[in-house]
């Protein structure tokens, strides 16, 4: 499904058709290890599951460039053994494709790996009136369409609060088009945007007018958040 002209939702990723670019966001590799460090014996399946899902996506599209829109890894301020290994494995997985890493708030020590694997690490990426940025801070220059991650948006419905669904959001920020991507972290669904407070400075205003695209077995267009709120109460 196209969320905007030329921008297609493929599972939890976005695909820029004309530019042949695939964007994924917020993988949080090493999340399980972080839980382990807190004394929670979480078995590690995430990497395996991510690869499985990426393979399916790559069956549908054939990108020339892969952009990882921030928070590739989970730990702040340090890089764990697993993170190091999994980041390298992920880069290797895309072997014959170009990869671009966008810096997220969890990525402050990704530099050495990027260098080692000869992958570019940037703050933002611009192409044809499009700005791709992680979304934890607002860059000086904004383009007509902005794609961010960081927020991990998800939705739940009244009566089944236990079920959350990952979703894309589409709305406006200072009269620019803003697209918010769900996280590619497969352990948690994300932040329930109908209930919880949002994190990103891009989402401080007008959230209720954002449109919701839920990704489950396929993409479901759900209309505006405010409609959903009215509807479920």
């Amino acid at each position, binding site marked *: 499904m196209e969320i905007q002209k030329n921008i297609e939702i493929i599972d939890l990723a976005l695909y820029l058709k004309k530019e042949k670019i695939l964007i994924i966001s917020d993988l949080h590799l090493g999340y399980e*290890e972080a*839980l*382990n460090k*807190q*004394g*929670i*014996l*979480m*078995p*590690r*399946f995430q990497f395996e599951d991510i690869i499985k899902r990426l393979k399916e996506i790559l069956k549908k599209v054939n990108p020339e460039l892969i952009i990882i829109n921030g928070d590739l890894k989970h730990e702040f301020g340090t890089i764990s053994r*697993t993170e190091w290994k999994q980041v390298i494995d992920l880069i290797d997985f895309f072997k014959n494709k170009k990869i671009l890493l966008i810096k997220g708030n969890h990525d402050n020590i990704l530099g050495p790996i990027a260098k080692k694997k000869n992958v570019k690490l940037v703050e933002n990426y611009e192409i044809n009136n499009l700005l791709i940025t992680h979304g934890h801070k607002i860059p000086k220059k904004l383009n007509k369409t902005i794609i961010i991650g960081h927020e991990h948006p998800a939705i739940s*419905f*009244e*009566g*089944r*609060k*236990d*079920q959350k*669904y990952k979703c894309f959001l589409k709305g406006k920020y200072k009269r620019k088009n803003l697209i918010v991507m769900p996280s590619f972290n497969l*352990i*948690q669904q994300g932040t329930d945007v109908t*209930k919880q407070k949002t994190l990103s400075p891009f989402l401080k205003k007008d959230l209720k007018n954002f449109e919701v695209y*839920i990704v*489950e*077995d396929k993409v*479901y267009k*759900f*209309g505006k958040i405010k*409609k*959903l709120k009215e*509807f479920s109460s």
Partner: protein
Amino acid sequence: MIKFKDKPNKDEEIFKVFNPLVKEWFKEKFKEFSEPQRFGVLDIHNNKNTLISAPTGSGKTLTSTLTIINELTTLAENNLLENKVYCIYINPLKSLSRDIEVNLNKPIQEIQKIAEKQNKELKIKIASRTGDTTTYQKQKMLKETPHILITTPESLSLLLTTKKFREKLKDVRYVVIDEIHALAENKRGTHLSLSLERLEKLSNESPTRIGLSASIAPLDKIAKFLVGTDRDCIISDVQFNKKMDLKVLSPVPDLINTTHEEMNNNLYDMLNDSIQNHKTTLIFTNTRAATERLVHNLKERYPEKYNDNIGAHHGSLSKTHRHDIEDRLRKGELKAVVSSTSLELGIDIGYIDLVICLGSPKSIARTLQRFGRSGHKLHETVKGRIIVLGRDDLVECSVMLKNIIERKIDRIHIPENALDVLAQQIYGIAISDITPIKELFELVKKAYPYRNLTYTNFKEVMDYLSGEHISLEDRHVYAKIWHDEETGMVGKRGMMARIIYMTNIGTIPDESAVKVKVGEQVVGTIDEAFLEKLKKGDVFVLGGDRYMFKYARGMAASVQPAAGMSPTVPSWYSETLPLSFDLASEIQKFRRLMKEHFENKSSKEEILEFIDKYLYVDERGKIALYEYFNHQYKFTKQIPNENQLLIEHFNGQIVFHSLYGRRINDVLSRAMAYVISKVQNRDVEISINDNGFYLTGKEGKKIQVLRAFKLLKSKELDAVARNAIESSEILKRRFRHCAARSLMILRNYKGKTKNVGRQQVSSMILMAAVRRISNEFVILKEARREVLEDLMDIDNAIKILKKIEDGEIKVKEINTRIPSPFAFNILMQGRMDMLRMEDRVEFLRKMHALILEEIK
């Protein structure tokens, strides 16, 4: 072999084995032995495992320790006392350890005094060791080891893992387990049963086990629980040797057509009269809130009679307040004390001549325990009253009293094969020793709760602990033990093992109060278990105000004020105890007898006479009972009973008159709702109480209940029930408890403590992940077992379905335009749970279709 002892020993026989000092002291102090002592002391002296069941206050503690004191005195006299533990005394309540210490020290000091006259010094040491013991005190215990060590089940398992102290435990001769009835029925007891086997493994010679229990059934099972597989035990049952004066009282003759005010007036007059006519009265209510209310109202209504001479005592009150009440009780300064459950167990609380239970205590054993708090001294009469507040209560309590007077006690359920507790204890063993896996399996099977443990289940626990389910490269993170397949040896892994074990063991889950919020403002707290029962739209009372439940997030419940709306859930719901199956069966039998009378067209007088003969109720109660059954029979021509399951259709709601107790109704109702939701493709709401349950379809379409009921076969109930609980709140909570017990979630790690909310969030992620490993992952399997076997009662639910299949219980359907009298209370319960038919994606699709309609 388990043997009941039918004759007590003679006093001279017992004195013969006593050290002269002890004999002198005893004769001076008591003159003769008490009944439990005559039964127990000599057997213990002969190192026979012994279970003593006797009422509180009959001197059980001294019975169990006389022999030990006797032996220690002899050893001390001959300077043979070594610096090691001779006896471990286990009491479930940490707070009682001090009192027990004092109580045990007294005879020892008195004997010491006698010894001093002969210029002898005995130096017998007693100390208690619990979670409150300081590091300094612990260090001191190594140098000056207590000969009698008083401890809790949890602290015992820690001691067994403590390198240096283990050495002190190798020659323990006696283990006393106090209040064993309070332990056997939950996982603390399961845990203890394994600790005892660990002690056995450590000991040079098998210690003699002594169990002390209040009235409980079945005693032979408790004895087996005490000693484990293939060991002998002698049971001394001296529990009914006290005289009893018991009655059920009804405040009004008609429990239904009475105004709330009249009811209250009569109730408080009744309470006041009783209190005034006795020296000290102990009143039990079923909830903490009711406890407070009662004290408040008595003071309000009779200000000249009650002021400082009455007090409340329950678990939510501060320790200081409780100790103050206990002290004043002992000193005889109080006219009345009102308690929920906190004064059921425990030490001497002084002179109490009357116990009143307000509302049904729900089990015979519990009622006995409560009544047993009166006439605490030997040879005094136990005086107890139950005041009933409703008609079901009246039936229940009258039948209960009959059972007490006729000495039938309901049987407790002992959890079996708890795999989470097993994992924790195996870890403990691995930390202190390298053991062959075969020996480990045999050790575990020696404990009664694990006597039927399969090797498959045992191996699954071992595989979990050794990280078999995890890929080799990550195993170092998960594995708590190593298991060498070739040598068959098992040992611990990791430098942190001991500290992890020390800071995380135990079986009592961290439960916590859930914050109740209106918007961001906290208006109070509710019990986590109560939250489990709440569904959106439920109205409940909190601190005198009414609130409607919206949703829960983590450990906070979001509500909105609901002034003027009637509560749909009684707020004490989670606190009330389930009716025991045995008592339920007795009530069903009474219903059958009553039905036969009505069907045989017995006259009112005849039936009243029957009630009078069969039960032990006052005049008002008798008439109220008759009227209740008479209404039911006149209205429906049916009285559901042990031979008939009545299904009543009322206004789209289906009431099952299944008086089997909540533990069984929980299984049956969820399974029924599941079958209906699957076969008829719809959501079903359920609500249960002890007397039955009701189902209702959300869209108001008629549910074909009989068809669904026929699909529910006894053979398949287990599988259906498993499906029915799979996405329930209760399974999520219980999985958290099991994950913590099996140390999948460490509550304390690297100096940080996780709060319950954090544990719950982690456990939800964890639950999804372990399902990915296997839907039968050992800890998930344990959570399901705990829900179905311990919280609910699947075994008896299966038996009931079997009886229906065999035609022993007939199913009868009726339609009513207003609910029948027996259905009334079941319908009053308010909704409890909703069984959903759709899975995740189906639900999303439905919401999507709805919203498309909306935005068209």
